[in-house]
């Protein structure tokens, strides 16, 4: 058999899940969609003592409006997020990002919470969560707490989740008026992890950018928000020159990206600039057209 032995639990409540997690004190892993965890088990890169399968906990898969925010249950399959008219309308950046995750066969199983809790810095959703300032609801033995995205991601494959906590839902602001967004990435093959990518939103007030959010993925130990580049755009006219300057600022401000067999640090830096530039141009165009893209 591929994976090493583990104890298996399929609790039916979050409270039960957290109590099992607490008992194993860091030696148990939560199993959501399994599209990252099971490969790690198969290769024995992960050898937890126990798996806590939360697929049989009801109510963790939902997509709904929550006041002026969009709330998504952690166990919602990526495919269901992709196909949700509400997501497409309320937060088009999230919709677009989900379509870039692997392949439909993976998105049928993969969950939004699993992807965020796995925190692969080359994946799309952490960058989207950072750019949109998503809020993470986390349940532990002593109840719920809420963390902003910027405090959730700690480093490579590491989040602020404690060993006895479960990510239960994520809420995103609904897209503001006069706002456009875009996510752009380069991968060696369609559906592969991106070498680098950018998730951006731009809000226009006439011809000027009243707000901009830029987050990169694939360039560091976590997704990275580039506040300096955003600052350069705020109040500026949404001209080619301003978008160039913002993309240059991204290139110059990010820490040295990783070099690996797929791409050099310099190439990733170059991609970060180019993807940011393309994403900004697309976002500005969408903001101008007021278009919720097809």
């Amino acid at each position, binding site marked *: 058999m591929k*994976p090493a*032995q583990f104890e298996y639990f399929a609790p039916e409540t979050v409270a039960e899940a957290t109590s099992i997690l607490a008992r194993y004190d860091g030696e148990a892993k939560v199993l959501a969609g399994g599209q990252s965890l099971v490969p790690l088990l198969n290769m024995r890169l992960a050898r937890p003592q126990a798996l806590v399968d939360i697929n049989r906990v009801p109510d963790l898969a939902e997509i709904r409006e929550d006041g002026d925010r969009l709330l998504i249950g952690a166990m919602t399959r990526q495919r269901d997020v992709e196909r949700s008219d509400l997501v497409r309308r309320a937060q088009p950046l999230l919709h677009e990002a989900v379509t870039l995750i692997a392949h439909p066969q993976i998105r049928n*199983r993969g969950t939004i919470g699993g992807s965020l809790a796995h925190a692969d810095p080359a994946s799309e959703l952490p960058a989207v969560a950072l750019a949109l300032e998503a809020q993470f609801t986390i349940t532990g033995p002593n109840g719920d707490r809420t963390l902003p995205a910027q405090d959730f991601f700690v480093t490579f494959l590491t989040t602020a989740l404690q060993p006895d906590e479960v990510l239960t839902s994520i809420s995103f602001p609904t897209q503001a008026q006069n706002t456009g967004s875009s996510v752009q990435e380069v991968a060696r093959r369609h559906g592969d992890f991106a070498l680098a990518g950018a998730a951006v939103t731009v809000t226009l007030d006439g011809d000027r950018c009243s707000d901009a959010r830029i987050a990169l993925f694939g360039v560091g130990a976590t997704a990275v928000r580039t506040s300096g580049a955003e600052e350069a755009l705020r109040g500026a006219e949404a001209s080619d020159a301003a978008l160039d300057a913002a993309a240059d600022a991204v290139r110059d401000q990010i820490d040295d990206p990783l070099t690996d067999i797929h791409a050099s640090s310099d190439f990733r830096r170059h991609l970060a600039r180019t993807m940011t530039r393309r994403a900004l141009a697309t976002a500005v165009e969408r903001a101008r057209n007021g278009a919720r893209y097809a």
Partner: protein
Amino acid sequence: MPERRDLRLRVNGVTYESTVEPRLTLVDFLRGELGLGGVHVGCEHGVCGACTVLIDGRAARSCIMLAVQASGADITTVEGLSTDGTLHPIQQAFLESHGLQCGFCTPGFIMSICELLEENKSPTDDEIKETLGGNLCRCTGYENIIKSVHLAAEKMRAL
């Protein structure tokens, strides 16, 4: 003794009950316990798509799902497609359009296409490519596979 868990699921219309180690992957259960050798084991980490089956109607990788997770599920493998010796229209279309060479990847492709054509009776080339991006063919038969999907769609529309 390693822990074992009860498992009850439907595969190709038949209900099975078994007791398995939790670490047994679904593909190994389907092949080893049920003898369904049409579910192929390729990369064993979710990349190649050879082990694709339908789980409650949705195409998914059986190599990165545990058998115990499939308890209660309704699964279709390539063995469940033909009826009384008559090939399913997708299988027939692969045969007629030379959609396979060595055939290793074929069951996975066919199960992905099952889900696609269930939802979309006339997919475009782009829609077919988006679906089949998750299945690798190392004979590089992709052009004929896309032709097979169009032919299968035509056959299924005529049913």
